[in-house]
């Protein structure tokens, strides 16, 4: 059974057990993946996932569907939690970038090549132009803001925005989304 997002949100807002359970079953693996890619290793990702779920639960009544989809709202909470954690871990995000950020090929460590769906992501990314790929990895996988990418790669913000957009467009094409 697929529960409609509207029903799920209503359930969460009313504090129903089934709703948080459904939410967990549906989204924990995706969110865990995002957390891990922003701030490995797994122990970190687990703490981040827990903190994010607690925040989601606590604040769900403030979520306004008119402003965007539930997943988007959740992943932004998770991303902020993960980046805060990363900052604490590394003192500053710049250190992180200098350490391994420039190496987009460390992606291979972040995705499991045994998994067909992960291979899809890697293949898709490999089809992108190098510059677009680099930007996409920073923004969509490692969770950096456009501004941070612009500073790190010494690119005009406009270029980063354009590349971020091209990457998503290619993603849709590649996976045959409308």
């Amino acid at each position, binding site marked *: *059974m*697929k529960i409609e997002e509207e*029903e799920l949100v*209503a359930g969460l*807002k*009313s*504090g*129903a*057990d*089934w*709703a948080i*359970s*459904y939410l*967990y*079953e549906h989204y*924990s*693996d*995706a*969110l*865990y*993946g*995002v957390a891990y890619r922003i701030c490995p290793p*797994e122990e970190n*990702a*687990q703490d981040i*996932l*827990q903190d994010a779920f*607690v925040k989601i*639960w*606590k*604040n*769900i*009544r*403030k979520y306004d569907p008119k402003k965007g*989809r539930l*997943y*988007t709202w959740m*992943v932004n909470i998770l*991303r902020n939690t993960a980046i805060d954690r990363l900052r604490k871990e590394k003192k500053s995000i710049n250190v992180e970038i200098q350490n391994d950020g420039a190496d987009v090929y460390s992606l291979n460590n972040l995705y*499991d090549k045994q998994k067909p*769906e*992960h291979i899809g*992501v890697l293949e898709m990314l490999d089809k992108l132009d190098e510059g677009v790929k680099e930007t996409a990895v920073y*923004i*969509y*996988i490692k969770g950096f*803001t*456009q*501004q941070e990418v612009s500073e790190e790669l010494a690119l005009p913000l*406009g270029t980063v*925005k*354009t590349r*971020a*957009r091209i990457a*998503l467009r290619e*993603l*849709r094409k590649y*996976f045959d*989304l*409308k």
Partner: protein
Amino acid sequence: MNVEEYISSGILEAYVLSDLSDQEMREVQCMSHIYPEIQEELTRIEESLEFFAMQGKMQTPDFMKERIMTAIAETEQEGEAPKPEEKTAKLRSLDEQEPSRGGRSMLLVAAGIALLLISSYTAFQWVQGASENERLQAKIESQKGKLKSQGADLITSSKSLKELRSELEDKKERLAFVSKEGTSKIALNGVPGHEGSRVTMYYDKLTAESYCEINQLEELSDDQQYQLWAIVDGKPISMSVFSIDENKQDWMKMEDIANVQTFAITIEPYGGVESPTLENMVVAGNV
């Protein structure tokens, strides 16, 4: 404003990632209300990112669920609880019959059983009423006990979860159609000689969609079938020819026909006929 340019500037991607100042966030929100193309593009971007994340799933270790659920149980939700609206009321009552966190599959089975048990006809009768939800909820309450004992049997029965799910989907669709505004319920009562027969049509005049619900029809001999007619401008149009047997479907989607004044069912030779035999009419009802 040039909407195309705005969309291709990359600001929407940044908006979806909350990667803008508060003022810019409000600006995009405002734009998305004014320009539907912007709203559509935002939705596409959100869906892409969601899809992307789903591709990058990692298996959460099993112990995490308990850890997180415990943390959540200790956390108060902020803000005011919403007033239970229709949907929440229904779903919550389903939830309450699930005393433990038995996991999603148990919940699904329970929800499936609940909807199956409150079988179509009665459920729809209540849905028509004004205080439909209270009644539905009360009924679900009273089914709790039965559910608990029957639940185990059903789970082990031959019906797979998948089948239950698809049945549940069907029921949800039915419920959605019969309870939506614009759908009229037309009782087709038995004509003299067929007093025991009863059929209900659900008909949306605007969209011309209709569903037929068989409440009570006698079985016919093998060379006969029932034929459903829609009377439009005084002329009968054949909608369906069907039999009643043990596999009978009690709920059928009908062809869309506009401006129907009357629905009627006749008994006809197997395969149906061009125009109805009036003396063989079984049930009829006016829209």
